């Protein structure tokens, strides 16, 4: 048994440091028998509409590549533009020189039971690579899809942006309209090489009884840039994630943005950690959280290991329902003189005077609340499909109702 497998086996039942503990016995490992679907012909209109709400367009046009995994089966995987390599991770491990060497370097296989399962019971995942110097104009689209109720999906994703390359990945993680329960375990390791740029936009659109455990590690080399946008607007049972970005080379930059709406019954424990371990690195973690009755913990951790680094953390929360709960945990850790770390955290309700101010401009109360919520959630995300922008708008409108 390899050392990795051995460590995973030992951690099979290891509880995660954060988040509700889940028993795998409560989920099924029997996914559907989904066949490869080169032209997306096996998706009916209802399913297509549902996928659109997670930003998944089911077309190869206007995408540099498309990857779609339903339960444990890769049903579509195609690179459409030169300079992009796209493979299911299981194939990449066997056939690509890089892939096997880069796994489990940024996320510890024995971190907890979820990382261990991703190694011991791997379904699949994607390997996406932007070749050196290639600036990929269109986003790469990926979709991790729960199509069978109670399925426990285990994926491992690997992304490499080679020196000077640029790429945007839009990942939609969602469940079939008839799937209400399940577990998604997603390990992701992203390497941004010197001067590279990776924008990673992840949309979660799950269901009331689905649990989600992403485990993400990112390394950014000299002059590289990593931008993460995370969007969660629909109900989910639990999410626990705490991606860690290491700025390893001088001048590397990371920006982690999240917009989250916690619905009644949802428990969301999420954050972002940036380790600034090289000179002139810059980091930013911006979290916008709204609860309409759910519970959220919004974490952020900046670690400054070198002088002449600068990073800022911003956690802002709006409680729009009496039963809502937001707990903001900003942490700043400077280990040498000369670091510049700051944070801003605010949790509260919408002030009546703000609503009335807008009403004095002719907006009714619902429009006023929606305007404020829209502004609150405003995080500039470039390259979103129009359908996803409309989905965000709709979620905001719904959130404003009944205030």
């Amino acid at each position: 048994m390899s050392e990795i497998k051995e460590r995973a086996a030992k951690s099979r039942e290891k509880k995660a440091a954060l988040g509700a503990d889940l028993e795998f016995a409560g989920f099924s490992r029997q996914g559907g028998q989904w066949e490869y679907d080169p032209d997306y012909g096996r998706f009916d209109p209802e399913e297509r509409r549902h996928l659109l709400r997670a930003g998944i367009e089911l077309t190869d046009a206007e995408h540099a590549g498309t990857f779609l995994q339903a339960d444990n089966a890769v049903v579509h995987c195609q690179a459409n533009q030169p300079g992009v390599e796209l493979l299911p991770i299981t194939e990449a491990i066997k056939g690509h020189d890089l892939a096997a060497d880069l796994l489990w370097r940024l996320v510890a296989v024995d971190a907890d039971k979820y990382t261990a399962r991703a190694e011991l019971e791997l379904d699949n995942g994607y390997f996406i690579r932007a070749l050196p110097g290639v600036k990929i104009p269109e986003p790469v689209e990926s979709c991790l899809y729960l199509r069978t109720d109670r399925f426990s999906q285990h994926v491992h994703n690997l992304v490499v942006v080679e020196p000077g390359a640029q790429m945007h990945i839009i990942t939609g993680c969602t469940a079939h309209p008839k799937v209400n329960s399940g577990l998604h375990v997603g390990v992701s390791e992203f390497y941004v090489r010197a001067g590279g740029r990776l924008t990673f936009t992840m949309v979660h659109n799950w269901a009331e009884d689905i649990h989600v455990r992403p485990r993400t590690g990112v390394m950014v080399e000299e002059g590289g840039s990593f931008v993460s946008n995370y969007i969660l607007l629909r109900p989910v049972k639990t999410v626990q994630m705490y991606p860690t970005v290491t700025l390893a080379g001088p001048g590397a930059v990371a920006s982690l943005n999240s917009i989250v709406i916690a619905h009644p019954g949802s428990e969301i424990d999420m954050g972002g950690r940036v380790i600034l371990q090289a000179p002139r690195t810059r980091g930013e973690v911006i979290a916008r959280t709204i609860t309409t009755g759910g519970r959220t913990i919004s974490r952020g951790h900046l670690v400054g290991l070198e002088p002449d680094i600068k990073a800022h953390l911003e956690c802002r929360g709006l409680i729009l329902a009496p039963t809502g709960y937001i707990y903001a945990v900003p942490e700043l850790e400077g280990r040498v003189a000369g670091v510049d770390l700051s944070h801003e955290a605010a949790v509260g309700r919408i002030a009546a005077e703000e609503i009335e101010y807008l009403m004095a401009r002719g907006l009714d109360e619902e429009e006023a609340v929606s305007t404020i919520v829209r502004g609150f959630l405003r995080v500039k995300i470039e390259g979103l499909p129009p359908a996803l922008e409309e989905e965000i708008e709709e979620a905001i409108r719904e959130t404003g109702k009944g205030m």
Partner: protein
Amino acid sequence: MLEIEDLWVSIDGKEVLKGINLAIPQGETHILFGKNGSGKSTLLMAIMGFSRYEVRQGRILFLGRDITQLPTFERARLGLGLSFQRPPTIRGVKTGDILAACAGEKVSHQALAAAYDFLPFLDREVNYGFSGGEIKRSELLQLLAQDPKMVLLDEPESGVDLENLEVVGEIIGRLLQKDRRRHHRDKSGLIITHTGFIMDYINADQGYILLDGHLLCSGNPRDILQDIKKFGYEECSRCRR
């Protein structure tokens, strides 16, 4: 255009306005003087219908319609427009979006902003980090975009530097159709001022002093201002007694 009949208003249970009677005909602008805490802002807020200002007695008529119980947005849609003395900051919401919402299809909000050198502010959050003059310009441009029939201005010159005073005055003049002959004006105004500066930019028809919740000393606004400068508000109190 606006008629207020025996208006009693309280804030958090405390009576602030005590039987206000006021009528502002179409095309006229009236000026409200009074020392701090006399109830001037309360009167404007009550006219707009803000929830904190409880009308305990009396009524407010606008264009012949009783609006005393109407929600704020309906009053705005009927044609009442207020420039706040201290508007709130709304994080995340762009000033340009609010200006566009005020303008609707009527007018280009960008053209309005361009005319008053306000384009750089459209992408900024509402009132966040604005100077006193920038706040007033923002408020007044929103009113221009709204194009209200009745303009309510709460100390439009307060906190404004000399450079911005001119622009603020110009916009107010435009809002109240200063360039038209009186019988051709269809906009009306009610303006709170301490300095009277704003009267150089408009045609003020009538002035009042609000003291301890009562409206006193109706007359020519310039004469009233002269008296206040000369004798102070104490003289008004004595005169009333």
